């Protein structure tokens, strides 16, 4: 618990109703959607940039850690406050300040929920394309801080491709403006880019300027089924090699298909694998036909199409629900985010998926694989008995093998979910030569190391720590 005078100070800054110290609040703000948990000592909910500056000034003087937080849907423990300290809930800063279609940008506060922004943009025929699976609840601030993306990244790119500028409160309490309101800018260091993916370790983003894109006139969706996972993977590379860029190309393996059918009461074909392929724009129908022909050639068992908005939504709902649905796959398993977000060169997808399955078998665990195959980004979920020390240990070994496979295939250990705690040891391997530079940047911008300390390059040891599940609880 922080000294009462700090709590009083925070209350003076934001108003008493925005400072939370009860058991219920501290415990619940200690979770995100990862395997980790640690309660903060206080939660504070600012409503204005000025308040953030004052809070951070207090924290910096007293050397108290601050973890900025959006919706808490991060999958690697990014918003879990390892040192307790302050969790800063930014969801009350949720105003869409401007939508300037004629200049192709919008200006938002960090707490705006992704889906809400797109609802407003849609009224003007525009959208902010990254489409993370958590888009109905996650915030723009969280997306920027993690460089989130999603199923439309293959055609439209990731969050970083849309960030034109931002305002950031630095650890010193200074407010800096980075980037511009223009589509192009070659005016100095691209520091707004540095903040993208910074995971709350370099500053607190209080305003974001995002590029917006016109909504496509039309969308078409195809569902291709395969009786071999390997063939489905090959299908993906074959589609991409033809030079047609779909607006989404998703893969689900049989574990995922079964889980979604059970949880969501859907009836996706019970095959080894399926691909969901979307094309958009004026040529959507033509393009999907061409893609279908390629899928057939590469061994798809069946292909069905739809342009019906409801049917497409239903299929996407199934896809978006894979991650949570896997948690009900078997009665004694929970699904945990470990090695959940690898990206490999597209031509290596098939090899990667087959290797993951083999690793799972070797270690006696279940792994469900799905993801944005079209851009090489694969998600896996490990299903395990959270009470079994042995399964956690096996899972950690399997994760290590998976990451090594990915690095051998010239991939990256995270395509979009970012590092936090759960991926830190392997990012440290992948970015070996950059670690010192990262640490130098961190030290320069945050001398007292108060901003989300202990994550990414600063993490040490096994990731099976700060577990929200029972095994280490017994161990403690």
């Amino acid at each position, binding site marked *: 618990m922080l000294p009462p005078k700090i709590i009083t100070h925070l209350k003076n800054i934001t108003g008493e109703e925005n400072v*939370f110290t*009860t*058991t*219920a*609040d501290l*415990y*619940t*703000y200690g*979770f*995100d*959607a*990862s395997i980790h948990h640690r309660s903060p000592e206080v*939660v504070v*909910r600012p409503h204005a940039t000025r308040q953030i500056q004052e809070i951070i000034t207090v924290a910096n003087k007293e050397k108290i850690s601050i973890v900025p937080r959006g*919706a*808490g*849907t991060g999958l690697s423990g990014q918003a879990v406050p390892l040192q307790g300290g302050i969790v800063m*809930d930014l*969801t*009350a800063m949720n105003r869409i300040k401007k939508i300037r279609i004629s200049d192709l940008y919008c200006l938002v506060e960090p707490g705006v929920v992704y*889906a809400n922004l797109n609802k407003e943009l849609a009224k003007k025929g525009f959208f902010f394309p990254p489409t993370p699976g*958590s888009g*109905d*609840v*996650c915030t723009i601030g969280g997306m920027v801080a993690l460089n989130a993306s999603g199923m439309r990244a293959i055609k439209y790119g990731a969050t970083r491709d849309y960030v034109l500028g931002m305002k950031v409160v630095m650890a010193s309490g200074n407010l800096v403006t980075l980037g511009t309101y223009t589509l192009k800018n070659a005016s100095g260091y691209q520091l707004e880019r540095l903040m993208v993916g910074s995971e709350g370790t370099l500053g607190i983003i209080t305003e974001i300027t995002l590029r917006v894109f016109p909504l496509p006139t039309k969308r078409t969706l195809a569902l291709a089924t395969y009786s071999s996972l390997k063939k489905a993977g090959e299908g993906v590379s074959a589609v991409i090699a033809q030079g047609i860029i779909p607006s989404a190309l998703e893969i689900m393996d049989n574990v995922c298909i079964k889980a979604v059918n059970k*949880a*969501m009461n859907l009836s996706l074909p019970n095959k080894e694998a399926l691909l969901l392929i979307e094309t958009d724009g004026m040529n959507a129908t033509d393009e999907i036909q061409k893609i279908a022909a390629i899928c057939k050639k590469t061994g798809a068992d069946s292909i069905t199409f739809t342009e019906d908005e409801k049917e497409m939504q239903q299929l996407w709902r199934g896809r*978006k*629900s894979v*991650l*949570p*649905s896997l*948690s*009900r796959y078997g*009665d*004694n398993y*929970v*699904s945990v985010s470990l090695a959940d977000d690898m990206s490999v060169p597209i031509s290596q997808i098939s090899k990667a998926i087959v290797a993951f399955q083999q690793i799972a078998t070797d270690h006696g665990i279940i792994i469900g694989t799905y993801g944005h195959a079209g851009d090489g980004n694969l998600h896996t979920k490990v299903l395990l*008995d*959270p*009470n*079994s020390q042995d399964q956690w240990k096996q899972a950690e070994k399997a994760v290590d093998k998976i990451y090594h496979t990915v690095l051998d295939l010239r991939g990256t250990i995270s395509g979009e979910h970012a590092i936090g705690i759960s991926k830190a040891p392997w990012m440290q391997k992948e970015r070996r030569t950059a670690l010192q530079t990262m640490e130098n940047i961190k030290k320069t911008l945050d001398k007292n190391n108060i901003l989300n300390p202990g994550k990414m390059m600063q993490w040490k040891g096994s990731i099976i720590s700060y577990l929200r*599940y*029972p095994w280490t*609880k*017994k161990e403690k």
Partner: protein
Amino acid sequence: MEGKYNFLSTISMDKKRKIEIMSCTGCGFCKEGCPVFEQTGIESSSGKGKILLAYGLLQGDIIEDESVTRAFYECSLCKKCETRCPSLIDIPLIISSMRKHIGYLPQHEQLIQNINTSNNPFGETYEAPVLNKNSTLGYFPGCFLNLREKNIKKATLSVLKKLGYKPHVLNTSCCNAPLERIGARITSPKRDYGYINTLLFSCPACLYMFKKNTYKKIQLSHITEFILQKKPIFTPWKKKVIYHDPCYLGRWLGIYDAPRQVLQNIPGLELVEFTDTRESAQCCGSEVEFRTAFPLLAEKMGKKVLREAKKKNALLVTASPHCSYHLKKLGGHPLDILEIVDNCLPLK
């Protein structure tokens, strides 16, 4: 050690529920649309927050204190989160189970005492029930119709009379829904069913409690289902109305179509919908134990419903005395569906 899950706590909860709690991935999908979270924006208000608190209590990570107790009651049990959860967690059921283990809020004491001593949440006495013990058709008005929304009871009995029925109006001790929701101990009252084979309800909460608890041999129906079956011919009523799904009738009992069809059978009536409707309908915060403990939240939730009805320039109609009563107190003018039916049903 229970099964494969090592929950430390002695709180008794069946294994299936404990596993459900453990299966929460923390995705937060249940926040979207939660009427309480929408107002407070804090984690402990959401379904996710409450599931994690249940987990914390079961694991012994936290102990129940005032804030934890309050968090479990700061929920209207509207069931919206359950429709959102892709991990199939029955969030309201887990909240209800936890309520059985933790103390009540001070605001609930009087309610519990009133029901235990006077058989209704208001601590008042009933007017004598109308009895027609020979009828095979029964009607259970419940506390709210007897003591507050008497207009709905009057309209319902009038409609039944016009349709040629004189029901056996059941002795009306409380259906105990408020106690059930609070997690308090319930003693089932003795009721005299006479020759009833069909029992009708205006209040969806009463219907739910009866369906849940007993009476397998008696057909239990909401009054709108009964009216729909009888296919009465209505006189025209040229009004634009918007139908508010009560949580108990909709998400708890799955009755969405009957009230809408009854309204649509009235010539000239134009039925419009809320933006969030049917399974996604907005909860107005009307349940008695919720609005007693959290009046400000309940007010904001109710006013949101009133605002949208006003914006759509439509008469607000609903099918629960709880919603009517609450929305009237907030300055709205909701009609119960039976009041409209009575108005449009000519005498035989």
